[in-house]
């Protein structure tokens, strides 16, 4: 088993190197067979990496504890799905998962772009970049951090999964997030293809847009799922702790969002060509930086993985791709002139530009806050910690400005807005905001952050509703369709635009949820004797002792509570193999308005007679964030849906002017 996996990895590494050499040499010597051979090697490398994953998964499924990695991360008491999920729970396995997901992305790209066409000129370079990254991963897997390391004497049972990972979220959050980071390699590969070939027009943008959207979607969902997991498992009452590992996964997503917006400038107006290349490069650099931070243990984090040998390799790879791709960009800079100039600050172009600067500004702030402890220690020999207050204080106002632009941007015409445009487009949303704010004020919302935040969300909401209404009415009057059909066809025929608006709605739901839960969270703690109660924000929590159960492999202590008469049972779980590391299961009652979130923090005494210590949080609007995540998925899928081809008929060839006896 171990040797089969190891052979696959080393073989994949050799094939990846061959694919790079053959592709580049094929271009240089103009030999099609060599280029084709390079692509075949990439297919074969993909096959071997996927086989290696299959071997490791099989080893997990049959509890082959002769593999150290299997022994370390699973045991016989775990349910099968968690045993399989343990695949990516450690360093070596997640490296293999990365290599596998990137190989599969490579295969998808090779398959989709197999037909002859203008895109074929990029493919040798695209293959090379993808195989360079796969090669790097398989180099680490084969020679530095192998998941196929054997144990001299196979033990009877494994250590098992860390209790923190023992959760439904484990099945979906890590694979999404890790694949989302890797997926940025694909648009990056097309950017390198454009630079290498010198074909710097719209081709590479149109080719990579969908791949970038998919990467953006997977990474975005990975982040939302991570927040959801943290909320359910970590028990501190929140969902986003500005932990380094969270930050490094957010940064490529932010830069990617900027990219998805700014490529429209290139497609529509031929502007920002160098900028778009730079953005997708930075998104890729930050993804690799993310994998490096996650796996190197260089930054202290709740995800603290052991310090490892792979850090220097990641740093070398990162340096290589940064220097190499920026070098290419500078070399091509003279060919990257804009076709058009910016005309006015009041235009779609200008709002995209501001949006980009804000996204990069937020990314820079998060980056600086994340690495500042390292910088301070290296330069000033001072250990400092930069926590959530920094990020909230710095990122909060910038996110607010971004929300404002999210409302303004889509209503701005290209080139230059006229006075009538502005009146026409902003009158309704702006009055909507004023009415909405007045209602919020009457409902008792007085906090100025909440009023600003909710006001911005209302503004975006107003602009999106206005866009949908106008489009539907215009279509109805043009075609005579029913309202519903008009709306459906409007979205179907302009899916990219209206899918984007749905994503904007998703973001404003997440924004409103973040504002509500940050400003209006209430909490209380108490140690409650049986029958005693605690009041937090209108909820009465009554304790009735504890109940201990022992399903196989674990001891579960439940706090027996009622919240306004309904049962709620927060838990602590003590796994047999991790006795000193209990894990928390939060008791949660969620409504669209607010969540009651109860953590069992301790107990004293036996079963029904025990005193129960609880921490109770009332978190308003948190469920809006999860709804927003779902809507983000829907909106992105609408945008990605293949466009409706307009019905066309070939016009009869026009006779040349001379043939009609007219002087040209």
């Amino acid at each position: 088993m171990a040797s089969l996996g190891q052979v696959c990895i080393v073989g994949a590494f050799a094939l990846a190197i061959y694919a790079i050499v053959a592709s580049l040499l094929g271009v240089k010597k103009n030999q099609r067979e060599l280029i084709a051979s390079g692509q075949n090697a990439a297919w074969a490398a993909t096959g071997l990496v996927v086989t290696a994953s299959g071997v490791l998964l099989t080893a997990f499924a049959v509890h082959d504890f002769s593999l150290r990695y299997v022994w370390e991360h699973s045991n016989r008491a775990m349910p099968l799905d968690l045993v399989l999920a343990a695949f990516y729970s450690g360093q070596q396995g997640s490296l293999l998962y990365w290599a596998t997901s990137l190989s599969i992305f490579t295969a998808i790209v090779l398959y989709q772009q197999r037909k002859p066409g203008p895109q074929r000129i990029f493919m040798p370079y695209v293959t090379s970049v993808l195989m360079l990254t796969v090669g790097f991963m398989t180099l680490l897997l084969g020679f530095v951090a192998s998941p196929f390391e054997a144990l001299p004497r196979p033990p009877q049972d494994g250590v098992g999964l860390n209790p923190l990972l023992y959760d439904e979220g484990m099945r979906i959050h890590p694979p999404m997030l890790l694949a989302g980071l890797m997926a940025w390699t694909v648009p990056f590969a097309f950017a390198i293809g454009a630079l290498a070939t010198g074909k710097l027009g719209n081709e590479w943008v149109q080719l990579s847009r969908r791949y970038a959207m998919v990467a953006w979607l997977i990474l975005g969902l990975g982040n939302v799922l991570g927040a959801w997991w943290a909320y359910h498992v970590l028990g501190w009452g929140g969902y986003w702790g500005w932990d380094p590992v969270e930050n490094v996964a957010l940064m490529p997503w932010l830069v990617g969002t900027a990219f998805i917006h700014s490529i429209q400038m290139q497609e529509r107006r031929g502007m920002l060509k160098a900028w778009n290349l730079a953005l997708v490069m930075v998104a890729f650099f930050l993804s690799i930086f993310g994998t490096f931070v996650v796996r190197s243990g260089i930054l202290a984090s709740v995800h603290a993985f052991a310090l490892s040998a792979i850090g220097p390799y990641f740093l070398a790879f990162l340096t290589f791709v940064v220097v190499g791709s920026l070098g290419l960009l500078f070399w091509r800079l003279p060919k990257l002139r804009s076709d058009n100039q910016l005309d006015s600050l009041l235009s779609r172009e200008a709002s995209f530009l501001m949006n980009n600067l804000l996204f990069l500004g937020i990314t820079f702030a998060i980056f600086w806050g994340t690495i500042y402890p390292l910088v301070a220690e290296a330069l000033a020999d001072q250990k400092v910690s930069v926590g959530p207050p920094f990020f909230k204080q710095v990122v909060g106002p910038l996110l607010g400005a971004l929300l404002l632009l999210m409302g303004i941007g889509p209503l701005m015409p290209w080139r230059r807005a006229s006075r009538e445009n502005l009146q026409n487009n902003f009158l309704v949303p702006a009055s909507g905001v004023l009415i909405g704010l007045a209602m919020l004020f009457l409902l008792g919302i007085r906090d100025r952050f909440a009023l600003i935040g909710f006001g911005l969300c209302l503004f975006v909401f107003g602009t999106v509703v206005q866009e949908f209404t106008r489009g539907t009415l215009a279509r109805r009057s043009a075609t005579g369709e029913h309202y519903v059909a008009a709306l459906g066809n409007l979205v179907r025929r302009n899916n990219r635009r209206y899918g984007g608006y749905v994503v904007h709605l998703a973001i404003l739901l997440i924004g409103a949820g973040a504002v509500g839960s940050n400003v209006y969270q209430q909490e209380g703690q108490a140690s409650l004797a049986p029958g005693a109660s605690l009041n937090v924000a209108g909820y009465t929590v009554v304790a009735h002792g504890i109940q201990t159960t022992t399903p196989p492999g674990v001891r579960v202590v439940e706090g027996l509570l009622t919240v306004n008469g309904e049962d709620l049972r927060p838990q602590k779980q003590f796994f047999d193999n991790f006795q000193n590391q209990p894990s928390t299961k939060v008791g949660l009652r969620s409504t669209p308005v607010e969540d009651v979130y109860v953590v069992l923090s301790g107990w004293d005494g036996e079963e029904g007679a025990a005193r129960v210590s609880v921490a109770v949080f009332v978190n308003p609007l948190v469920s809006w964030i999860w709804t927003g995540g779902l809507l983000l998925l829907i909106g992105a899928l609408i945008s990605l849906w293949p466009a409706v081809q307009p019905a066309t008929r070939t016009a009869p060839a026009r006779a040349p002017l001379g043939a009609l006896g007219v002087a040209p």
Partner: protein
Amino acid sequence: MLVGGVNIKFFVAGGVIALAVAYLVLMGLQGTTVYFLTVGELQAKGPAAQNQLYRVSGMLVPGTLNRESSGLGIHFEIADAGSSPLSVVYRGGQVPDIMGDNIEIVAEGKLNAQGTFMANTVLAKCPSKLENAPPEEHDYAGA
């Protein structure tokens, strides 16, 4: 007015955003950075350290972890090699799951005039992190 082919007002608008980001980052770092000290380093600062927000790390001194009779607050002592113990009081409610003897604790809070560290956050560093100790250190021979 054009500079390098671009209307100067775009440089101004971009510059405003860049300056705003720089200002927010600088102010943010000044206002929110918390110095990270060992118990020994905190004690070396003497009374000057009182009422300033610090993060202090040290090992939990065995046998010193106690719950207050109300059941909410906890008291404990932390120390590092060569320092005398620092007593810590924490009434935040969310006691880390793995808190125990000889676990490395990180407490954020302020030192009061009596020399007690009043923590508002307590974190425990997991000794095994998410990786396990190598098999040599586990007793699996008899399994």
